[in-house]
């Protein structure tokens, strides 16, 4: 019994460390899941004279993708958004976070525009309301304006296929 004590302690430590290594400290559980999405009304990127607010989205299940032209990881994710926007499975709206309008438009021109509409959050206030701290971030919002899913970091095809789409289909009923 005594002889195996060091081995037992080692195993317990190894299990704890192994679990710890699997955790991603950047994925902070959002307190916003299953809560009403924070209200906003922001100018549209393409037509700044028009705006878009959360209440305009009532009754729709939609994806809010936070992006910026200065964000390197957004470029990784972008082809996924473009691909799924072509399939017309889920409307994708963009929140252009702390970006310059010219830069954002040029970026969309160069890499394609998957967004039904992008809105400009130039000072990042709406981003703060949504708890954004690492772009890209993606929110699935249901017809009642409740946040159902949040992804911090790039959305991969697997995440879109296995997490976002099944949940969106369920919400769309």
């Amino acid at each position, binding site marked *: 019994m005594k002889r195996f004590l060091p081995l037992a302690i080692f195993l317990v430590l190894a299990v704890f460390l192994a679990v710890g290594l699997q955790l991603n*400290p950047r994925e*902070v*559980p959002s*307190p*916003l899941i299953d809560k009403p999405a924070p209200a906003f009304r922001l100018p549209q990127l393409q037509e700044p004279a028009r705006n878009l607010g959360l209440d305009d989205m009532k009754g729709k299940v939609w994806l809010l993708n936070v992006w910026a032209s200065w964000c390197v990881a957004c470029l990784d994710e972008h082809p996924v958004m473009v691909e799924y926007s072509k399939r017309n499975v889920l409307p994708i709206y963009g929140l252009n976070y702390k970006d310059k309008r010219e830069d954002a438009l040029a970026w969309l021109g160069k890499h394609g525009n998957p967004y039904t509409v992008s809105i400009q959050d130039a000072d*990042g206030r709406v981003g*703060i309301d949504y708890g954004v701290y*690492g772009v890209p971030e993606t929110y699935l919002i249901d017809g009642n304006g409740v946040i159902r899913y949040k992804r911090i970091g790039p959305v991969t095809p697997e995440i879109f296929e296995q997490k976002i789409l099944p949940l969106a289909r369920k919400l769309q009923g």
Partner: protein
Amino acid sequence: MKIALFILALLLSATAVAREAVPESADPVLEKRVVKLTSDLRCLVCQNQSLADSHADLAIDLKNQVRAQMLEGKSDAEIRDYMVARYGDFVLYDPPFKARTVLLWAGPFVLMVIGLGGLAIYLRGRRSRVDAGEQLTPADRARAEKMLRGEPGGEA
């Protein structure tokens, strides 16, 4: 002369540092409140720094938020709630005690109790072995003394 120049340079550099530390609003009392509150809030971009210490873009925005809300007359508790509503308890360096954080708060004490319990069991076991008459025989004692003196015949 060189030393005088050196000292002059040192003095100038000190003023340069001092200039960097000028608070962003003119009210030193408010600025102290901002620093005190943001020292207890975690910067989410650089997670081992507080908002007060961090120069990340988001941290600066959030500090401005804190300052703006204080100017609007909000209390520290209200501002802390505002941050928790957006980023969760994770932003607090001093998270509240609740079901999710039980392990965090109680864990060290549980480990201490386990450790003290183990120690108590071990000590009791040792004492009962001594009480049970497990004592040094004269032969063992002689061997041990030889070992201590470093004489041959003590080994094995």
